[in-house]
C-alpha cells in the first residue's frame, strides 16, 4: 500500500475499514454498487462486500434516508449516500424532523446510528443546483452531528468515528478536495468528532476554516507570512460538536478572528462561531470580527463568475490585511 492516498480514495477506504470490523455496517445510495459511485468514492466496496452490504437504490432520496433511519433503529449501521449535498433538500424532512428528533421525542427509547454522506461544495462549475456548500442547513437542526473533513487522513478518521457513533452524522465530502491527496493513516486511525485541528500555528490572527476553506486559508497564511503576518489556521473538522474551546483559546492569543466559510454569509455557520466569540470572547478582541463567506447569491455556472462569489485566497489575504491594519 502506498503511503499516499487521495481524499476520494480515503472515503471508500474509511467505509471499508468499518465494514470489515462491523457486519452491521451497510451502504445504500444511487449508483454506489457496481458503478462505484458517481464520484468514485465507493470504489471497491461492491467487489469486496457484495450486494448484501452495498445496495443500489432508485432515485428516491426520501426512501434512501428514511430506510436508513428505519434500519438504524433496528440494529444496523447504515451509511447512506446522497449524491450531491444539494439533494439533501429532497429528503430534508428526514434530516430536519425525523432522524434528529426520534431519540429525544421518544424519551430516549430509540437511537439512530447512521451516517449520511454527501458530496458538498463548489468550485467545479456545476452551477446553481449542484455546487452548494450546505453544512449550514444541517447546523440549523439540533440532533445532527456534522463532519466536514479537509484531508484524506481526517476523512478516514472521522468516517470511523461517524460510523461508530450512536448518533446520526451528516458527513460532507468536499467535491473540490476529492482529487487532493495526503498521508494514508494507519489502520485503526480515529479522529474524534468535535475536535478542531490547528492546521497552522500563528500569533497575529485566528482564521477559522472548514473543509475546502482550510486549504484556502493555509495558502493565504503562506502568502501573508511574507508580509510578516502570522496566521493561525483552525480546521474545525466538525460543526457539531462545535469545538469553540479551541477557537476561543486561539483568539485569546491572537485577539483577531476571521471566519472563512463557503456557504453564503446569510445564515452561514460562521454566524454561530462569531456570536459565541462576540459573547464569550469579547474581552479578548482587539478588532472587529470578520467573515469571508459565500456571496448571498445562487452559484453561477461560469468559472469566472463562480470565483467571484466563493471564498478565494485573495479574498482571505485581503481580509486578513485589513484586520491586521485595524
Amino acid at each position, binding site marked *: 500500500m502506498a503511503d499516499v492516498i487521495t481524499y476520494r480514495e480515503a472515503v471508500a477506504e474509511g467505509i471499508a475499514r468499518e465494514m470489515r470490523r462491523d457486519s452491521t455496517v*451497510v451502504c445504500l445510495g444511487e449508483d454506489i454498487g457496481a458503478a462505484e459511485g458517481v464520484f468514485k468514492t465507493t470504489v471497491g466496496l461492491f467487489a469486496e462486500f457484495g450486494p*448484501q452490504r452495498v*445496495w443500489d*437504490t*432508485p432515485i*428516491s*432520496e*426520501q*426512501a434512501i*434516508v*428514511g*430506510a*436508513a*433511519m*428505519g*434500519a*438504524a*433503529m*433496528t*440494529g*444496523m449501521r*447504515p451509511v447512506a449516500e446522497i449524491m450531491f449535498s444539494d439533494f439533501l433538500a429532497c429528503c430534508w*424532512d*428526514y434530516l430536519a*424532523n*425525523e432522524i*434528529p428528533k*426520534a*431519540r*429525544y*421525542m*421518544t*424519551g*430516549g*427509547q*430509540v*437511537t439512530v*446510528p447512521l451516517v449520511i454522506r454527501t458530496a458538498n461544495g463548489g468550485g467545479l462549475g456545476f452551477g446553481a443546483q449542484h455546487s452548494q456548500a450546505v453544512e449550514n442547513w444541517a447546523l440549523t437542526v*439540533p*440532533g445532527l452531528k456534522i463532519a466536514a473533513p479537509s484531508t484524506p487522513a481526517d476523512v478516514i478518521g472521522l468516517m470511523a468515528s461517524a460510523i461508530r*457513533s*450512536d*448518533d446520526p452524522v451528516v458527513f460532507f465530502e468536499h467535491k473540490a478536495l476529492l482529487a487532493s491527496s495526503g498521508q494514508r493513516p494507519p489502520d485503526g486511525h480515529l479522529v474524534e468528532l*468535535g475536535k478542531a485541528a490547528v492546521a497552522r500555528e500563528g500569533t497575529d490572527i485566528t482564521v477559522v476554516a472548514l473543509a475546502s476553506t482550510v486549504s484556502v486559508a493555509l495558502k493565504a497564511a503562506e502568502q501573508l507570512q511574507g508580509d510578516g503576518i502570522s496566521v493561525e489556521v483552525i480546521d474545525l473538522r466538525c460543526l*457539531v*460538536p*462545535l*469545538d*469553540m*474551546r*479551541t477557537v476561543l483559546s486561539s483568539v485569546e492569543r491572537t485577539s483577531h478572528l476571521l471566519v472563512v466559510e463557503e456557504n453564503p454569509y446569510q445564515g452561514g455557520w460562521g454566524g454561530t462561531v462569531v456570536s*459565541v466569540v462576540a459573547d464569550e470572547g469579547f474581552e479578548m478582541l482587539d478588532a472587529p470580527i470578520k467573515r469571508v463567506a459565500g456571496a448571498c447569491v445562487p452559484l453561477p455556472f461560469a468559472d469566472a463568475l463562480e470565483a467571484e462569489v466563493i471564498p478565494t485566497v485573495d479574498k482571505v489575504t485581503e481580509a486578513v490585511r485589513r484586520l491586521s491594519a485595524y
Partner: protein
Amino acid sequence: MTPEELLDAYEEMALIRRTEKAAHDLFMSGFVKGTTHLAAGHEAIAVGASAALRPDDYVFATYRGHHHAMARGATPEECLAELMSKATGLCQAKGGSMHLTKASTGMLGSYAIVGAHLPMAAGAAWSAKLRGSGQVAVAFFGDGATNIGAFHEALNLAAVWQLPALFVCENNLYMEYTPIADVTAVPNPAADRAGGYNIPGEVIDGNDVTVVHEAVSRAAERARKGDGPTLIEAQTYRHFGHSRSDPAKYRPAEEVERWLKHDPLDVARARLEAAGVPPETISERDRRAAQVVEAAVTAAKNAPEPDRELAFTDVWADGSATWRT
C-alpha cells in the same frame, strides 16, 4: 381467530375505545394540552393486525397512533400520562399524543409528518431481511398519506428490494376536514396504487377485527416467505373529529350514522355471540376495560410532573444535549 382470541381482541378494543374517550374528556377539561388525534373507530385495525404479528415485529404509526401503542402493549396509564405531560408518560412527556412510542415491544414510534414513516418501515424491513430475523415491519397510515411523495418512494423501494413490509392504510374517508375523494385521482387511494409497484393491494373491512387479522396474517406470511410487501387498505371511520375539539361538521349526518352502526366493537360482539360466547362474558370484559381505564385516569392525574432537566437530556445517545465545547 378462535373465540378466545376474539374475546381478547374485543377486550383490547374496548380498552382502546375507553382510553380514547377518556383522552377526549381530559382534553376538553384542560388536562391534556396541545392536541390529540383520537383513534376511536379504528380499533379493529390495530388490534386485528397486532394479533397477527409476532412480538418482535415492528410497527410504525402516525400522530393518530394511540390504538397502535396500546395494541402493542402500552398501558392506558402510560398513554394518558404522556398526554397529560406527566413524568410517567410513555415518552417522559417529551413526545406527547402525536409521538407515542413503545420501543421495547417493537412499536417504534408515531410520526406526525404525513407519510414520513413509510420509508422508515421499509428500512426496518430491510434490516430484518439483512439480519435474516424473519421479522416484518408494518406501517399504518391514513388515506391522506397516499398522495405524498414518501408513500411512492417507500412502496417502490420495498417492492424492488422485496422487503418484508406491510403497508396498511386506515382509510377513514377524510384527511383533516377534506374528503380524500376530492383530492385523489382514484377511488381507493391506497389499493388502486398497488399496481404501480407490482405488489398485491386489497381493500378490506377495517372495522371487522377478524377480517383485519386474516389479511394481515396472509400479508405477514407472504413477507416472511420472502415474497415482498403487501398494501392493505382498511376502510374505517373515526368517531371523533380530526383532532382536538373538531366537531367534524363537514361529514354528512347519514354517513356518520351508517358508519356508527358498523362500529368495530359491535361487529366483534356480534361475531362473539354468533360463536356462542355468552353476553355476560363479553360484558365482563367491558367492565374490566372500564376499570382499567378509570384507574389509569386516576393514576395519570396523580403522577408527578416531569423534571425540568428532562428538557436537556437524550438529544444524543449518551444522554446529553451538548453541541459545543
